[in-house]
């Protein structure tokens, strides 16, 4: 049976009918594709947003909560910290090096679009058992990819966490967090404000790479996954470095009104989201987009996920400044359109209208609440009696076994491959509870950590996520800093299974309670569903990235014993 066109772009019949109603007519093929990507799980948060809005997102320190490219927290003295976590699971499962590398690139762009200078990266990695050959290949590739990208851009990867468990064998998790620093009165947003302002395309050229990436991230991983992707995205960290410097230089002028990364769904998401946020419309001409391949059609141009590109909204008559700065850095900067007042995303090709859809309708996918069912394991786990495990006879043997387990062993093999010292701010390096960065010119520092515990969350998602938050909290406190806020990467299986959706819902509930208790609001994050292969779903794996502030960096403490003869004490229950 032939699939309907709407099915091919990942929409249901009901969604198709909604689109017809919104437009008052049948969508054409390009329009249908725009809806397809924007209403995908990856871009539209269809199955998560009804619950995400329950999370605590406000508090004294929060300058920017969820909804922008990244969240921002005030740390005093006029400074603010911008941070966010992002997943790149499916791309990394298919091509570990490039998948992980482009994941790093994406999250870095999210940070500097807000006006912040990225100062640190952290990674949370989940693989199958290391004695499996494919897993070894994925592990080596992912670590090399993160190193290859982060090291080249010159942002230190200062911490992370790594777990090996058979449950992640066919669906590895690669979550990356980036932290940036900025002056708190210099925040930039992804808004297409000011009718008549110019819409600029800057950065790398557009190719066919990563076509349909958002849709790819919104389905289970199958044997055909590789073929579904018309091409793997390849990162160009050097280009990213240029883009980073050029954008930060551009922000020094006041010519910029808004800016957004062309991440998943590239031009489509960046145009409709900036317009939707500002309540304006946007009109672009795909013929003007710098391309690196011949014969690309408008659908390909609108959906391409080529890396290292940005959409910048520039004040009328200030275009010259943009051209000058991007020329200095050897980058493309092309005016491809303008901000309009009609609320539409209008796509032209050499002036001819190809698509015309309300930007808000594209940017705001329908929200679903799915059926839930408590997984049997939760009741079973409650019955488990710890004391049923016999005391081991030989504790030495147990210790040796424990420290030789890859999950507990030192992760130096990994973080040695990451430049964790560049920028000379890393006061506490990886290998400790949290890492600590100084802020030159002040006495302040920022503590950062990223944590998760899939197994706990599997046994009880509500309690599990709270334990994860508590771990992050301890890590921050243990270096002498005060926890401020979190970002969350929520990794789950297919939300259409009631047990999985239950895990998701309970995770949000648990997180809400813990965030309120610890006074660490959520500033943003990422949801990755469909982490599932023929062999089943991964553990529910919420990844928590937490930051803290220390006012006197000299007072920081680390994990190592200092002097012979010092007293060793255990505190707590």
């Amino acid at each position: 049976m032939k699939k309907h066109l709407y099915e091919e772009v990942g929409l249901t019949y009901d969604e198709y009918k909604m689109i017809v109603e919104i437009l008052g007519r049948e969508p054409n093929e390009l329009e249908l594709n725009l809806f397809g990507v924007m209403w995908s799980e990856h871009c539209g948060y269809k199955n998560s947003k009804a619950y995400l809005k329950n999370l605590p997102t406000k508090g004294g320190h929060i300058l920017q909560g969820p909804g922008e490219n990244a969240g921002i927290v005030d740390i005093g003295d006029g400074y603010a910290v911008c941070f966010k976590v992002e997943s790149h699971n499916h791309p990394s499962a298919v091509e570990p090096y490039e998948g992980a590398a482009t994941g790093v690139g994406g999250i870095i762009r999210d940070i500097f679009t807000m006006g912040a200078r990225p100062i640190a990266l952290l990674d949370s990695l989940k693989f199958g058992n290391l004695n499996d050959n494919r897993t070894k290949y994925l592990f080596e590739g992912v670590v090399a990819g993160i190193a290859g990208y982060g090291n080249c851009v010159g942002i230190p990867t200062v911490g992370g966490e790594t777990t090996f468990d058979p449950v992640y064998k066919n669906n590895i998790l690669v979550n990356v967090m980036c932290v940036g620093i900025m002056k708190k009165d210099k925040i930039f947003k992804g808004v297409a404000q000011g009718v008549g302002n110019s819409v600029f395309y800057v950065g790398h050229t557009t190719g066919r790479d990563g076509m349909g990436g958002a849709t790819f991230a919104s389905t289970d991983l199958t044997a055909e996954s590789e073929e579904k992707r018309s091409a793997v995205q390849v990162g160009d960290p050097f280009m990213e470095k240029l883009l980073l410097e050029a954008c930060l230089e551009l922000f020094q002028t006041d010519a910029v009104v808004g800016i957004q990364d062309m991440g998943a769904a590239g031009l489509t998401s960046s145009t409709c989201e900036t317009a939707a946020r500002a309540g304006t419309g946007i009109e672009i001409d795909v013929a003007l987009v710098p391309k690196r391949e011949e014969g690309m059609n408008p659908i390909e141009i609108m959906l391409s996920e080529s890396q290292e590109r940005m959409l910048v909204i520039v004040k009328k008559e200030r275009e010259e400044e943009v051209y000058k700065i991007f020329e200095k850095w050897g980058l493309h900067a092309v005016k491809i359109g303008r901000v309009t007042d009609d609320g539409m995303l209008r796509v032209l090709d050499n002036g001819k209208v190809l698509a015309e859809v309300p930007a808000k309708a594209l940017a705001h996918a329908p929200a679903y609440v799915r059926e839930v069912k408590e997984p049997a394991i939760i009741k079973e786990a409650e019955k488990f009696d710890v004391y049923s495990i016999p005391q081991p006879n030989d504790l030495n043997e147990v210790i040796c076994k424990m420290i030789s387990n890859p999950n507990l062993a030192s992760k130096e093999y990994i973080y040695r491959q990451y430049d964790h010292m560049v920028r000379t701010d890393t006061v506490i390096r990886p290998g400790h509870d949290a890492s600590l960065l100084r802020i030159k010119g002040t006495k302040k520092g920022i503590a950062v950590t990223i944590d998760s515990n899939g197994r706990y969350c599997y046994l009880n998602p509500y309690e599990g996520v709270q334990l994860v938050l508590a771990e992050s909290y301890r890590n921050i406190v243990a270096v002498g800093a005060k926890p401020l806020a979190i970002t969350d990467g929520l990794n789950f299986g297919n939300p259409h299974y009631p047990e999985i959706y239950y895990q998701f819902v309970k995770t949000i509930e648990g997180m809400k309670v813990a965030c309120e208790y610890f006074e660490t609001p959520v500033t943003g994050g990422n949801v990755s569903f469909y982490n599932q292969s023929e062999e089943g779903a991964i553990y529910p794996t919420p990844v928590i990235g937490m930051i803290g502030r220390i006012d006197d960096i000299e007072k920081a403490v680390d994990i190592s014993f200092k002097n012979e003869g010092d007293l060793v004490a255990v505190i707590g229950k």
Partner: protein
Amino acid sequence: MLKAEIFVYLKKSISDPPGIAVLNSLKSLGFDNVEKVRMGKYIVVYLNENDIEKAKEQVKLMCEKLLCNPVMEEYKFNISEE
């Protein structure tokens, strides 16, 4: 002894940042008529083997198993006496 010269190169659809970097650099050195550059690997494998047909099969296997990543790359090779 046989010598296999193996060429591993990116599929057409895959972007090639190193190739673009070299292209730009060649242009700035004044090589104006360079249109495109693609970067790949040149792998020379010396085989303790006399039968060219057998060697061909082996090299094909090496490429498929290790040397070439079929998600992004393609390969070709030729075999000669050393």
